[in-house]
């Protein structure tokens, strides 16, 4: 009887210890997998999605329907003109939707040192340096940390390139554009992604 009791206790104790180790192991690995994503990796991933969607909308929707097939216009005042939103506007509408999410964990914007709307000119030091950096260093991104409104941010700046005639023509012809000689493949501005860090 005594032997049986010891055996049962040993089995129960073993099961408890192994299950505890197993569960804590699961928690540890999950934590490791989330904390393992660096702000830079997250920003790079976000930018890849943004860039892909934006390029596809620009080439396969706006440029195709406006420039190639000529079936509809794209307009800055797309609702008034019953036209397609410009690619930059589609991008900004997405950024505004993300901004409404209090737990989004990131924000992004489209800026340029030649902005059509002056509100989209670089403001912070990181933006000013970063937008010039991606022009001067093709294929490279700019990363920095900055404090804004008492919060520390990881800031990534990515080149925004004119991928279709629709981008180039619109900027070159717009009355508020400070630069009117853009060519296909030129860096026209930059995407700025911010992730708050502790």
């Amino acid at each position, binding site marked *: 009887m005594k032997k049986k009791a010891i055996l049962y206790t040993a089995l129960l104790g073993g099961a408890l210890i192994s299950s505890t180790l197993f569960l804590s192991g699961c928690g540890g690995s999950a934590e490791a997998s989330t904390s393992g994503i660096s702000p830079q990796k997250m920003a790079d991933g976000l930018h890849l999605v943004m860039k892909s969607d934006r390029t596809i909308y620009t080439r396969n929707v706006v440029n195709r329907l406006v420039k190639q097939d000529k079936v509809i216009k794209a307009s800055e005042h797309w609702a008034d003109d019953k036209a397609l939103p410009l690619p930059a506007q589609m991008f900004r509408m997405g950024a505004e939707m993300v901004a409404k999410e209090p737990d989004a964990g990131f924000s992004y*914007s489209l800026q340029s040192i030649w902005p059509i709307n002056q509100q989209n000119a670089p403001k912070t030091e990181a933006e000013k340096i970063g937008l010039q950096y991606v022009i001067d260093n093709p294929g490279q991104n700019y990363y920095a940390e900055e404090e804004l*409104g*008492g919060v520390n*941010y990881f800031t990534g700046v990515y080149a925004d390139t004119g991928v279709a005639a629709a981008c180039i023509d619109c900027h070159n012809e717009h009355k508020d554009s*400070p630069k009117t000689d853009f060519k296909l493949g030129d860096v026209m501005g930059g995407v700025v992604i911010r992730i708050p860090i502790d």
Partner: protein
Amino acid sequence: MNRKKLQWILAALAPLWLAFHFSASIKGEKQNAFMPGDASHGHHQIQLQCSACHTEDMGVKHDACASCHQEELDRVADSHPVTKFLDPRNADRVAILDARKCVTCHVEHQPDQTAQMGVTLPEDYCYFCHQDVAEERPTHEGLPFNSCSTTGCHNFHDNSALYEDFLEKHLDDPIHKPDPSVPPRTLYQNWAHENETSPLSLAQRDAPTSTHYSQDIAFEWSTSSHAQAGVNCMDCHQSEQSSDWVAKPGIASCQNCHDYETDTFLQSRHGMRLDLGLSPMTPAHAKLPMHAGAGHKELSCVSCHDDHSFETRFAAVNACMSCHDDSHTNSYKESKHYQLWLAESNGTAPAGTGVSCATCHLPRVEVTEFGETLTKVLHNQNDVLRPNEKMIRPVCIQCHGVGFSIDALADPNLLENNFSGPSSIHVESLEMVVEKLSRVAARRSQGTN
């Protein structure tokens, strides 16, 4: 009882009386014990319904403003949406003026500091972010910052009729457009056809025989648009819960078919009390001058749309004039707008060419429902009232040019006399656009960019 005893008793009763007073103030109809000051003209009707805006501990609900006003802001593509200030890159601006919160500019219960539109900041608030405006726009050099939003040029939220490209598109508008008219309402014209109903005659009414009503009412219904559309007595008078006859159907009955109209009515000054479950608004609640005899009329759908006849032409003019008693209203029948309304009413002018009170204050607007664009009547008259430039797009430019409309709305005398005569004020918005275009053309021709 000696004097000292009486003092002790009074001292003991005083806190009890105070506690009773405050308890009654908080829980009763009059929750005004802690109200720091009267609410603004937009909210005074509901100022004692604290829970509409406040949390239980008298904080401000996070969606207190947006729950009533966001839809309107979205419709006009708000020029300063909250999202603009949530971007960390605007943290420096937020530190100066926290435009993430409505209450930064619109503090309630501050009657001595509240200006038009419920703004409690000094009028030159644009300076905070736009002090360098003249660098980009030389035409703005030297203009005082308290004139930006007070002279018909700009609004903080709604610039849908004032933005530069819109003005550019309308530079050559005539004063009167050729063949001016308001768009026809689209949904209800086709309602009978789409719902496969047929017009009903007097004999086809389906009110229960046990119900007592006058023959006048039955006759009015038989000549109404409802009878023409096949809408019978029970369609409005039947309880959804019990299927019993309801003698006086409420707004919910109208809402079954006229959801946009009732929803916007409930957003308006006329319906905001009903929306919060309070007693209906009466003209006695109004801050504007009203006819003394109308003080106790209760506002609902049928207070303007006479029940059973549902005559929209009565609702468009006479219903308004039966309560409102101000110079703008009282001058209407001297105006050219009224002459046009008379001509349409007499059948001497085409449908849609008359201008009633409702033409301007309850305009026909395009709404999208289930992917289809429909023209419906906006029943929130405050939506296009202040700042009055909000009226330009949905109302004025149906018939007039943009420049003419901006000038007319900027002249307070014309508002008083209901637009009799030309405007004595000229807003130079269009000239500034022309100057900008000339400047850009000159710069481009010089090849500077």
